[in-house]
């Protein structure tokens, strides 16, 4: 394959050409309630060519038929030449890389029969159903994929990798009369079959939570001191801050650039944030990004001050900064764009108890059903929450929606515990029509002095 790709590169007339080819084998087994919804194995393959010429823009071609490789290289060059630019696109230099990367497959999923995968997810699904007869519906999915990946560019980079991925997810729906509550469990790893054994406890706990939420009151809406658990804190930093640190948002937008000037204070000195694509064994981890740039640990906020951002080669050159290995594509169907990898709030100090000790009334928001940021505003739906009363974690509450303004909220983070953990979840990040990109988030418990919690919604019909 490498020979085929380098031959195609040599034939390209463009000033810069890169080719990515992927071949993947995947399987998905889904249980719904007591039934198997589907068990399928799929094969996907294709390539992506990107060409750039002086004074021109990007030309790209994506295709599923590898017989078309030569024609697609020519097409990408043609398209590039059709896009005339006044200000040329520059690529920040990255030394050519040659690497053969076989990530730890940890029990290659391709050798495991579909029937065994079904038995595994059936057991986890069964663990949710066994919790209570209030569990009226479940959805449990096992998903795996191994991708063989080739990347070459006209600057001499040649990469060949085998990338594994395995995810488990479970939804438990509890119902009593008109009240419906749910719990979500999600595990995602860049590993294989061995790493998803013995996970029933998490699925059971998820279903138990859904049942408990049936009796939990809706949180009273209002402004509170809010403590985020590591999962929600991780989702928060990814959604609310991480996307703004992606340089493609700022590099050609003077006003955005001003808003995100390095050196600007974003938080109190306790706040340290980064993105680490080279962290060991996480879902967002890869040795190189999809431009052949080595991944790295990039500091974004240090002691409250904005110190860095995430780059592709193009955005780095435009801003006179260094590439950070964050140009990623979800598959050969898409071009690489600036994305996060494993984004984190760095560890603080002391136990969780220190965060709530002096709170008379507050909200402890846990887990995430989802989160969305739009511009400087965000909204996160916690999976559940507890009231904090007189320095103690008190009753379970539901419908905890955290909403606010990013800048105000980051600035109100006043205490970070020393209990950091990575949240190894499935799902992924979406941007520019590319979803789901495997990413990981990590954080310790984080306290926000004051934040708006939504609630008080009229009860369902």
């Amino acid at each position, binding site marked *: 394959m490498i020979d085929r790709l380098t031959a195609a590169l040599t034939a390209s007339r463009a000033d810069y050409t890169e080719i990515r080819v992927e071949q993947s084998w995947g399987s998905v087994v889904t249980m719904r309630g007591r039934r198997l919804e589907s068990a399928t194995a799929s094969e996907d393959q294709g390539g992506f060519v990107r060409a750039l010429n002086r004074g021109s823009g990007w030309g790209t071609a994506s295709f599923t038929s590898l017989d078309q490789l030569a024609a697609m290289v020519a097409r990408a060059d043609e398209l590039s030449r059709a896009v005339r630019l006044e200000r040329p696109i520059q690529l920040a230099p990255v030394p050519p890389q040659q690497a053969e990367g076989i990530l730890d497959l940890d029990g290659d999923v391709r050798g495991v029969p579909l029937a065994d995968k079904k038995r595994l997810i059936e057991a986890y699904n069964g663990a949710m159903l066994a919790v209570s007869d209030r569990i009226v519906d479940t959805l449990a999915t096992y998903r795996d994929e191994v991708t063989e990946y080739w990347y070459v560019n006209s600057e001499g980079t040649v990469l060949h990798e085998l990338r594994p991925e395995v995810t488990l997810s479970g939804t438990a729906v509890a119902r009593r009369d008109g009240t419906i509550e749910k719990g979500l469990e999600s595990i995602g790893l860049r590993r294989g079959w061995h790493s998803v054994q013995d996970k029933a406890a998490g699925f059971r706990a998820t279903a138990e939570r859904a049942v408990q939420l049936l009796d939990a009151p809706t949180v009273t809406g209002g402004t509170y001191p809010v403590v985020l658990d590591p999962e929600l804190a991780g989702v928060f930093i990814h959604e609310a801050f991480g996307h703004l640190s992606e340089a493609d948002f700022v590099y050609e937008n003077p*006003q955005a650039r001003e808003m995100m000037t390095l050196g600007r204070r974003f938080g109190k000195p306790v706040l340290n944030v980064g993105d680490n694509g080279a962290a060991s064994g996480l879902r967002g981890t890869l040795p190189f990004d999809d431009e052949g740039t080595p991944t790295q640990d990039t500091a974004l906020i240090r002691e409250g001050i904005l110190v860095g951002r995430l780059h592709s080669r193009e955005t780095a050159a435009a801003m006179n900064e260094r590439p950070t290995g964050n140009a990623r594509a979800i598959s050969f169907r898409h071009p690489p764009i600036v994305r996060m990898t494993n984004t984190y709030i760095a560890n603080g100090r002391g136990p969780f108890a220190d965060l709530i000790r002096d709170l008379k009334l507050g909200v402890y928001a846990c887990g995430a059903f989802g989160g969305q940021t739009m511009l400087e505003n965000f909204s996160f739906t916690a999976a559940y929450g507890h009231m904090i009363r007189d320095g103690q974690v008190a009753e379970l509450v539901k419908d905890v929606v955290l909403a606010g303004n990013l800048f105000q909220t980051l600035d109100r983070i006043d205490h970070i515990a020393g209990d950091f953990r990575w949240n190894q979840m499935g799902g992924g990040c979406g941007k520019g029509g590319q979803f789901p990109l495997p990413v990981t988030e990590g954080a310790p418990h984080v306290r926000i002095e004051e934040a708006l919690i939504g609630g008080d919604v009229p009860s369902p019909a």
Partner: protein
Amino acid sequence: MIEELLELARRRLEPGDGADALERRVERTSVAFEWGRLKAAGVTEEAGVNVRVLHRGRVGVAGTTAVGGDGVAAQHAAPLLDRALASAELGEEIALAFPAPAKLPRVATHGARAADASLARLIEIGSFLLERLAREGCQVNVAIEREVADTRVANTAGAQGSYRTTGVAVSADVWRIAGDDVLAIGDTIESTDLPSEDALAGVVRSITSRLDHALRIVAPSEGALPVVFTPAGLSAVLLPVTQGLSGKAVLQGISPLATRVGEQVFDQRLSLTDDPLVPGRTASRPLDDECVPSRATCLVERGVVQRFIYDLETAARAKSASTGHGQRGIFGKPVPAYTNIIVGDARVPGPGSRVPGELGGGLLKGIKDGLLVDDLIGVGQGNVIGGAFSHPVALAYRIERGEIAGRVKDAAVAGNVYELLKRIAGLGNDARWAGARFTPSLLLEGVSVARR
């Protein structure tokens, strides 16, 4: 082609078994203008096949993009069928019946102008928008995507159909960042044909008028207020209803509408129809992805729940009939999905997107103090199907004495759609396509608005 695959299946399968398959070939050309300038052009050529078998009463599915240059070459067909049979071995029993051959309705799904449009023509469309949307202190992104897709679907019962779809999607958004105030206003139009100059001018007007009104920032009122949801802003209100009308949710026992067919659940002025035969829409097609001929399905008529949407499998489980809503990708099995949803009195609109009317669709007049919601944050998160929602606004305006007073930034709206839709205080005269939905603005009363 899938004929070879089905022929192979006929030889391998036993009496009482069956199979169906879908092949789709897509060619896409896209042009992107980023932050005010043309930046990239790209093509995509994709092909894939999805096959489903019913073997000994069990269903199995497999998909692949390894289809070779011209259809499923023999060497690809056999392993694909093997994988589908392996999938069926694990499958649950189900009484699935593949539809027999039937006459297909005629529907216009493609336009030669769109299929033949050159790259230069697509760039021209983008430049037209860019020039008209440019303004001091703002940045403009424009994306044009043209797609030609050939779909062929067939089964071992002899039913089959094939059709070509063209689609042109034009989207533009204007960003304005002033200090820490970030504002982005966009619009998208989509059709099987190239957009007319009128339609493009409509995009410019829709963005410009919302931008002009947004420059002034005002504080919202609080409490239970009259709120106008624009066609784009209606998502949070309609999503629980469309989820509840899916046969799949009914089967799972999580739809609040499951037991309410024939009941007056909503205001008389609320009708919902899913129509796969609307001319000029990219979701229109003569038959669904399971060989069921297309027809319009009335889901809610004058507030009364009529029926749910089904694909073959959910219909078989619910002991009902498919409504022709089977949708399948290359990987995975078919699922029930909507095509073109029409809100209101089910007038089938003409092709293309209409020129947008005045913001608020004439509903502002009688409002002393309220809100106009065009975009919310977090729609689709959380427990949607129950009907309760609570979202911060992404783009909303305060209405005072019948006029837009300015943009509201830090506000959240909440309510329960099953309560709110019992009474609709007004339907706007601004019906348009917003994604897959054709809808006017709706005025709902008693929506909870909170400031923060």
